[in-house]
C-alpha cells in the first residue's frame, strides 16, 4: 500500500475532458480518489464512475451549482485542480508596412481572462467553504512557464497565468489557518491538442530551448499535481512548481 493520504479523497478537476486535465483525473483515480470531472465539453472519454459535470468555469453561478452538486454527491470536497484553460493568441498590435494591421481584440482578452483567471477565482471561491467545513483541503492552480518568462503573442494568456500565481500566493496566506494548502504548477510545453495549431518550426525551437530536449507529456504534469495534493507535500503552500524540462523562454 502506498500511503499518499489520497485514497477516497474527493477531487475536482476542471478541464477534465482532455489533455492535462484528463491525465490528471486519471492519475487521481489511480490513487483511489473519487473524481468529479468538470468541463465545458461533454466528457466523452471519461470513465462513467467519474462524476461528470458540464460547466463553464467563467460562469460564476454555474460553478457554485457544480460545487454544491459535488458536495451533495460525495459529502465533501478535498482537492480542486484549477486546470481549465484556453488560448486566444495574438500580438498586442500588429504593425505591417508602416501601418497598424491589427490589435488583440477586447473579446480575445476578456475570454481568456474569464476562463483562465476568473474561472480559477470562481471555482476556488465556490469550493473553499466546503473544504473549511471538512477540516482542510488542497487547491492547485494551473499557471504556465510562460507566466514566469513571457512569450510572444500571449498578452491575454500570460496576464491570466501570472494572475493565477498572484492569487495562489494570496490564498496560501488567507487559507493556511483552515489547513488549506494552495499551490501552482507551471507546466512547460506539453503534448496536448492546445498545441495543434502551433507551427512545427516553433515547436522545434521550443524543444531546442528545453534542456531535456522534448515536449512534456500530460502524465508528467499530473504527477506534480498528485504530489502537491498528497501528504508528501504537507508543508508546501504558496509555491509555484515548474514542470517544464528546464525550458528557458523569452523571445
Amino acid at each position, binding site marked *: *500500500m502506498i500511503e499518499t493520504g489520497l485514497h477516497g479523497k474527493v477531487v475536482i478537476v476542471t478541464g477534465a475532458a482532455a489533455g492535462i486535465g484528463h491525465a490528471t483525473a486519471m492519475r487521481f*483515480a489511480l490513487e483511489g480518489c473519487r473524481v468529479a470531472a468538470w468541463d465545458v465539453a461533454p466528457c466523452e472519454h471519461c470513465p462513467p464512475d467519474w462524476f461528470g459535470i458540464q460547466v463553464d468555469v467563467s460562469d460564476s453561478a454555474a460553478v457554485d451549482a457544480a460545487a454544491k452538486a459535488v458536495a451533495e454527491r460525495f459529502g465533501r470536497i478535498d482537492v480542486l485542480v484549477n486546470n481549465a484553460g484556453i488560448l486566444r493568441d495574438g500580438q498586442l498590435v500588429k504593425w505591417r508596412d508602416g501601418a497598424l494591421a491589427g490589435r488583440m481584440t477586447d473579446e480575445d482578452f476578456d475570454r481568456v481572462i474569464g476562463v483562465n483567471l476568473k474561472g480559477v477565482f470562481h471555482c476556488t471561491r465556490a469550493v473553499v467553504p466546503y473544504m473549511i467545513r471538512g477540516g482542510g483541503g488542497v487547491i492547485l492552480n494551473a499557471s504556465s512557464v510562460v507566466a514566469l518568462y513571457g512569450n510572444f503573442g500571449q498578452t491575454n494568456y500570460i496576464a491570466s497565468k501570472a494572475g493565477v500565481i498572484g492569487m495562489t500566493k494570496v490564498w496560501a496566506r488567507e487559507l493556511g489557518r483552515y489547513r488549506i494548502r494552495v499551490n501552482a504548477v507551471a507546466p512547460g510545453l506539453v503534448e496536448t491538442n492546445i498545441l495543434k495549431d502551433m507551427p512545427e518550426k516553433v515547436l522545434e525551437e521550443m524543444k531546442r530551448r528545453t534542456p531535456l530536449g522534448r515536449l512534456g507529456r500530460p502524465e508528467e504534469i499530473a504527477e506534480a499535481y498528485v504530489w502537491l495534493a498528497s501528504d508528501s507535500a504537507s508543508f508546501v503552500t504558496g509555491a509555484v512548481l515548474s514542470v517544464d524540462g528546464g525550458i528557458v523562454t523569452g523571445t
Partner: protein
Amino acid sequence: MKKIYIVAYHQSKFGKLMGMTVPEIVRAAVDGACGEAGIRPEALDVASIGAACNQTLNEQGLLAGLVAAVPGMEGKMIEGVENACASGGQAVLSVAQKLQLGFGETGIAVGYEKMRGPDGKVDGKRIGQVLGYYSHPDERPGKTFVFPHIFAEIMQQYMAEYGVPEEHLAQIAVEEYACAQHNPYAQMQGVELTLEQAMRIEGVNRYIVDGLPLKTYDCSQITDGYAALILATGEGLARLGVRRSQCVELAGYGQATDPLGRAGRDVLRPRGALRAMQAAYGMAGLKPADVNVAEIHDCFTVMGAIGTEVIGMAAPGEGARFWVDGQARVGGRCAINSSGGLIAKGHPVGATGVAMIGWCFWQLTGRAPEPLQVKAPRAAATFNIGGPVCASVCTVLRPAG
C-alpha cells in the same frame, strides 16, 4: 496449491462508455482497480484480459499489449483470453493459474466489452451477427439473431420437459430488476419491471422468434462496461501490505467446455457446467448448502433457472421455482444475482465473468449497497458460461478471515 486471494475490485457503471476508446477503457480498468487496492500497477506481476467482440466490433486485437501500455505494466507476463461470454471468468482463472504456477505473487484480471457506438446507440443487427460467431456454423442458418434464437429453443425445451410455466421464468427477470434499483452500477437502475409487464406483449416486449416463448424481458442487455480484479498469493498480500481479513479467498474454481454444437447433448443438464461447478466446490471443500451468495449467468431467464440448478440450489427443473418462492432474494436461502444479473445489471460480455466474482467480493466483505447486502454472508458461488452453454467457468469464494 497456493491459496489465491482477491484483493480489490473495480468496475465501471454498466451501460454506456460513450467515446471511450479501447486503450482508455483498459487503462481505466487497471488504474481503477489499483486505486481501489491502494497499489500501483508496478506492483503487479502478471495480467490477463478477456473480451469477446474486440476484433469484430472494436477492430482491435492483442489486448494484452494494451494492458502492457498502461504505465507500470510493461514487460510483464500478460495474456489475452477469449471464451465468448466466459472470457472474463477465464481471465480470472488465467491469473490465478499463473500465480499458482509461481510466475508471480500478484496479478490483475481485466474484462471489458464495448458494444455500443460512441453515441451510446446499439447496432442490433451487427451485434446479432458478431455474437452469432460464438455458435457452431451448422446451427446458424435460418437464424437472424442466433443466440436469442438458440436460447428461445432451450427455453421452450425447459418449459416442455419440466412443465414450467412462462410466468415462472419471467419472475426471474422481475426479481433481478428489483435488485438493480439499488445497484448504482446496474444498467437498468431506474427501470422498474412488474410480472404483468414482463408477460404482456406490448411496446418493447415481444416474442423474439415467432412460435417460441422468449420475450424481450427474458433477455440480458447490450452493454458497455469494464471490470477488474486484483489477485494475490499469501506472499503477494504481504508484499502489497494488504490485510488478509479485507480479502476474499478464491477457494475453488473449475472450468469445463462442452462441444460448441447444441445438437446431441443435454443442454438442460449441461455436463461441462455441472462438472466445473463440482470441481470448484470440491477444491474449496464446500457444498451448495454452505453458500448463501451467488452470481449466475442469466443471459436469458431460462439460464437463471438452469444456473440455479447448476450451482446446486435446486434439483433439475426446480430452478425457476426457487426464484418464484423468493429463495433467491436477499434474505432468502441464497441471494442469487443480487447485483441485478446480466438481465438488469447488464452484460458487457467480456466483463461479465469478472463482475460476477467482483460482486461476490463486495458481498463477502460487506461492501454491497445496503438493501442488497446479505447479512452474514458465508460463501459465494459463481457460474459464468460462454456460447450455447458451452464453456463454463465456476468459482467458490469465501471470506479470507
